[in-house]
């Protein structure tokens, strides 16, 4: 654990910080404009979306440069711009945005990866008739996500968070005529909602305790020492402080969004959406929002650290992350859909990030987030390219041999795959995963997470080799001929592949630029960084594990091109565990017989209550009134009427004259009423003048 960093106070925010709101606002406005376009205006829609995001990227780069320059001059930049949204009596609801190293890094990553995926979508969605709607949603997503990133108010973050969830729902269900896509969209929305309820509770609690929604506000924000000290003195249940309990509630929200066990079930189903969506939302950015949220509220998670430098909230984060990492990697081994394998891999890698945050701090988790965003977006887009080339085939057993048919896709995919496996030295994934493993090695409470994560790394290398062997090696087993994708798809792949390699350079132990940047400390290049005790041994061990996984995968699957109908090589060896893993360890089925069955039962109870109990009450009231009416009619006909009839005859003769104005039309009555009002008012006004 690093010691707390003291930031030098700023004299008001700089120009770029004041313009920061434009970064999310421009894509959102563009999305609104695209929504007004007619369906055939495809080029205009794509131009608007890409132009707006390019503008955001430009601003993000300027903001990033501003923070880097400040850091190079020894200043820690944290500039906030806040304003009051609503005022209730003496209570303010504040919104605001912040420019600090964390948000600057994330802004550049989101807008850059987003821009590449937008460009890729031109080619991928070229034949879709709802092209404009797609770009409208994508733009809205990009804006909302950038809003989450710059938020300095937990409320603004939550607004962006929910908008992101909404666009995720819209995009998963983009092909809504397909029942599975519609169901997957609903599942994603409802599952993340479970986490969001806890998140909202955490927000309300935090607001109630600290009285402010802002994270940083010159000492008065909820993540600053005064508020944190206050939270530590409040005791919640089970020996937790208020800070710990709020941290756990916020983590529940993050777990929903980031697909952590047990709320991971929606993410693999979300692959029903178009592939660029899977790449952008369900691999690179939105699912990382949960990790980013934990990084953003890290001072809260870390508040009150005891000896060993950790807190209950962080321990929970660590264990959930490590468990998810292994759990999802196991399932990924036995999947046959190319995108589902990647989806479980994403869940697993998000587990790594959470574990990294829990054990190593913001920089460790965030570095893996950034490198993962690049290589996982690359993998998804490569998978999309392969699907496109194989005529919309997603089953890996019906692909094969794409190495020669799609060379550009193969090259870039191989780079992404090696980065994901953490192949030594030249790939970014190696350095970011090593950071997490190193933190796990120094975790004082238990060695459990370390062994789990190492095992996860082995599994990762194994299932990725399996997938690549199926898809790219052997002979082609699909229908028709595979063909390479257009330039608009392969060029972004190349750019992402470059970053999947190059990003490793900013996070090596010799030159921990990224860590220094996030923690606002000076860094220098010195090879002595490798001499930390145990580091070289760890790197060696991790290399051996990765090579073992690769070798095992190649031994079982390499270059064999089995027929699609054959049992999987692993299935032949271990039929029973394979069946469990293939059925995704029955988590969905478990929810089906517990949560969903309970809701169905509850719905039936409510229906019964409605029909029998409340319906009975209403019928009873109606019956009582009916009885009263009967009684009154009896009195009327036998008692009142006799004497009444005589008088009525007289009256009806006179009434016949007046009935002329009773036309039976409501509006005539209303008109007469209004005319009478005018007459009355005229008389009053006239008399008051006299």
């Amino acid at each position, binding site marked *: 654990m690093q010691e707390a960093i003291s930031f030098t106070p700023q004299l008001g925010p700089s120009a770029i910080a004041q313009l920061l709101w434009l970064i999310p606002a421009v894509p959102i406005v563009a999305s609104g404009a695209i929504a007004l376009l007619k369906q055939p205006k495809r080029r205009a829609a794509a131009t608007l979306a890409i132009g707006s995001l390019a503008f955001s990227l430009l601003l993000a780069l300027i903001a990033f440069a501003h923070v880097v320059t400040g850091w190079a001059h020894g200043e820690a930049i944290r500039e906030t711009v806040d304003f009051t949204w609503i005022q209730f009596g003496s209570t303010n609801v504040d919104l605001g945005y912040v420019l600090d190293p964390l948000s600057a890094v994330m802004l550049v990553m989101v807008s850059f990866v987003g821009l590449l995926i937008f460009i890729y979508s031109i080619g991928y969605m070229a034949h879709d008739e709802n092209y404009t709607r797609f770009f409208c949603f994508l733009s809205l997503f990009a804006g909302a996500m950038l809003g989450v990133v710059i938020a300095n108010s937990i409320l603004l973050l939550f607004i962006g968070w929910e908008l992101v969830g909404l666009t995720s729902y819209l995009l998963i269900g983009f092909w809504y005529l397909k029942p599975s896509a519609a169901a997957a969209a609903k599942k994603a929305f409802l599952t993340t909602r479970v986490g969001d309820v806890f998140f909202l509770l955490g927000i309300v609690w935090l607001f109630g305790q600290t009285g402010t929604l802002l994270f940083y506000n010159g000492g008065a924000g909820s993540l600053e020492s005064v508020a944190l000290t206050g939270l530590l003195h409040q005791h919640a249940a089970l020996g937790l402080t208020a800070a710990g309990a709020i941290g756990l509630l916020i983590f529940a929200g993050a777990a929903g969004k980031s697909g952590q066990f047990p709320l991971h079930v929606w993410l693999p189903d979300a692959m029903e959406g178009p592939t660029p969506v899977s790449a952008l939302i369900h691999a690179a950015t939105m699912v990382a929002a949960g990790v980013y949220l934990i990084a953003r509220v890290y001072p809260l998670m870390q508040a009150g650290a005891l000896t060993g430098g950790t807190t209950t909230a962080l321990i929970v984060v660590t264990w959930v992350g490590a468990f998810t990492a292994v759990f999802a990697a196991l399932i990924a081994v036995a999947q046959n859909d190319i995108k589902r394998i990647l989806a479980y891999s994403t869940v697993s890698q998000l587990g790594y990030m959470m574990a990294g945050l829990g054990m190593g701090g913001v920089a460790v988790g965030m570095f893996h987030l950034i490198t993962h965003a690049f290589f996982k977006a690359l993998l998804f887009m490569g998978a999309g390219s392969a699907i496109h080339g194989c005529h919309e085939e997603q089953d890996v057993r019906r692909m094969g041999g794409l190495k020669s048919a799609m060379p550009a896709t193969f090259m870039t995919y191989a780079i992404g795959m090696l980065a994901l496996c953490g192949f030594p030295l030249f790939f970014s994934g190696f350095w970011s995963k090593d950071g997490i493993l190193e933190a796990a090695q120094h975790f004082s409470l238990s060695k459990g997470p370390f062994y789990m994560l190492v095992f996860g790394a082995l599994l990762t290398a194994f299932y990725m080799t399996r997938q690549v062997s199926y898809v790219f090696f052997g002979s082609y087993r699909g229908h028709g001929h595979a063909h390479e994708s257009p330039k608009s798809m392969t060029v972004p792949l190349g750019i992402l592949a470059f970053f999947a390699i190059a990003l490793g350079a900013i996070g090596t132990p010799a030159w921990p630029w990224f860590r220094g940047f996030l923690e606002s400390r000076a860094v220098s290049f010195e090879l002595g960084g490798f001499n930390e005790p145990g580091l070289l041994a760890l790197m060696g061990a991790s290399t051996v594990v990765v090579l073992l996984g690769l070798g095992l995968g190649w031994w079982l699957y390499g270059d064999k091109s089995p027929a699609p109908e054959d049992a999987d090589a692993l299935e032949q060896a271990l039929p029973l565990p394979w069946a469990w893993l293939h059925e995704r360890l029955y988590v969905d089925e478990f929810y089906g017989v517990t949560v969903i069955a309970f809701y169905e039962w509850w719905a039936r109870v409510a229906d019964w209550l409605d029909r029998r109990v409340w319906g009975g009450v209403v019928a009873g009231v109606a019956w009582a009134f009916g009885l009263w009416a009967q009684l009154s009619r009896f009195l009327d006909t036998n008692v009142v009427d006799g004497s009444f009839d005589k008088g009525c005859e007289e009256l009806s003769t006179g*009434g016949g004259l007046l*009935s002329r104005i*009773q*036309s*039976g*039309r*409501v*509006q005539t009555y*209303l*008109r007469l009423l*209004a005319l009478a009002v005018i007459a009355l008012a005229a008389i009053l006004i006239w008399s008051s003048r006299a």
Partner: protein
Amino acid sequence: MTPLTGYLLVAALLFAIGLAGALTRRNAILVLIGIELMLNAANLNLIAFWRYGPNPEALTGMMFAIFSIAVAAAEAAVGLGLVIQIHRHAHTTDLDAMNRMKG
């Protein structure tokens, strides 16, 4: 023009628009919409008088407006229920075609 005058004039205009709608449209639902507008115009008057009146701490105008909103909600529910029932019987919501209330 003082602020209060401005608000009162806007309220009068809205009231007249609502009345015109209620008097000139044939569809019963549109008549209800007109009536809702008139109620809202009255609420605006109440709030404006509360704000610029002599004794805002007593909350009289504000309370009136809140109660009026509640009563209007009840009115809308019953009114629309009636419209639906009339439609079920007469298969129309056209007020010109409805004159069975004739004496």
